[in-house]
């Protein structure tokens, strides 16, 4: 499960860093790197469902939901 990692060095304004640090503290993160990773992940992955579902499979799922009375 251990995915390969790359090191990225970025330069950001001190004021932004301070804000990020404050946000990280508020959100309960002890490690600022972990917080930045978390935020980036959320940003990049939003809009994707993470499900591998072909239209045919989706129709099958809906059929079962219909049969069980969950959808009309």
């Amino acid at each position: 499960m251990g995915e390969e990692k790359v090191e990225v060095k970025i330069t950001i304004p001190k004021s932004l860093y301070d804000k990020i640090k404050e946000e990280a503290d508020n959100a309960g993160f002890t490690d600022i790197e972990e917080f930045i990773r978390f935020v980036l992940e959320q940003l990049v992955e939003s809009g994707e469902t993470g499900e591998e579902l072909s239209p045919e499979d989706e129709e099958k799922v809906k059929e079962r939901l219909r049969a069980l009375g969950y959808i009309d």
Partner: protein
Amino acid sequence: MIPRPHGGRLVNRVLTGKRREALLREAGELPSIEISYERLIDLMDIAYGAFSPLEGFMVQEDYLHVLYDMRLSNDLPWTIPVTLDVDPEEISSVKEGDDLALKYNGEIVAVMRIEEIYGWDKKEYARQVYKTTDKNHPGVAKTYHRKELLVGGEIDLLREPSHPLENRILWPIETRVLFREKKWRTIVAFQTRNVPHRGHEYVQKAALTFTDGLLIHPLIGWKKPGDYRDEVIFAAYEALIKYYYPKDVVVLAGLLMNMNYAGPREAIHHAIVRKNFGATHFIVGRDHAGVGDYYGPYEAWEIFDEFPDLGITPLFIREAFYCKKCGGMVNEKICPHSEEYRVKISGTKIRSMIREGKIPPEYMMRPEVARVILSFKDPFVH
């Protein structure tokens, strides 16, 4: 937004069609072991993605990380090891890298690629996961009865035995499609193993005030004598939903999953699993998944502080009671009155009234719900 599954991708290891047929034929030639009903349930939870990102039973590295750090080796939160235990004799003919057929009641249900065979320390497991080595704890007792070695590796589900309540069970891909169909953006999940009383209803409605939908998610699995039978729980909830919830805000679906009584660790586990089902919020009860007095009343809440990266929001809603002064269901946080005005809703009291065939008072349980429970000849497990 419906959250992405834990780890980013919904696992699907249920084989279908030609691949399934081919593997079933091959599996007949493989060495095999018989697995217990509880491991079969784990197997299905893995295959259907309820345990995403797990693709199989844990290898030692993940096992140890989960045991000591409450995270997988890739740092993702995970608090309860998911392992397959075997006797050394059972697997004397196989080695790492081999395929192994898993049978339930003599029938092949899955194939596992053996990645690792390793030993484990049950007492240490109990100490870490259950915070006690006392064998009177039901989870600890189960642990001590398990076999001596663990086998880790990915699995493929080939066949599943039918379940009497299979039409009550939904899997993560199904609830996810369902929530999208309903256009819910926020969904709060409620874990239960009980029939609903007014306290449960209050907690659910307090949460539902702020979310688009409510997923009532009873755990289906092994029960102990004295528990309500699964079909009674479903019927009772159906009555509650019919008479006391608006149309189209509730989904009632069964979750086939083992109960460990691991208290705080299990509260995190329950939350992760609900995220995989597409919930954005999860109600964590006081002494959630606890048993006896092994855990402090708020331990299951405090542990969430250690997991800011869980990806599902816990809702800590205090136990509800009836207050004569307030004139309704309230909780500690919103009622200023003293004990003399407060009437606690006790599941134990309700249970004994049901046993005697009596309808509990309305402030404890909705009469429609009580009548449905009493309509069963025997609502309890023996």
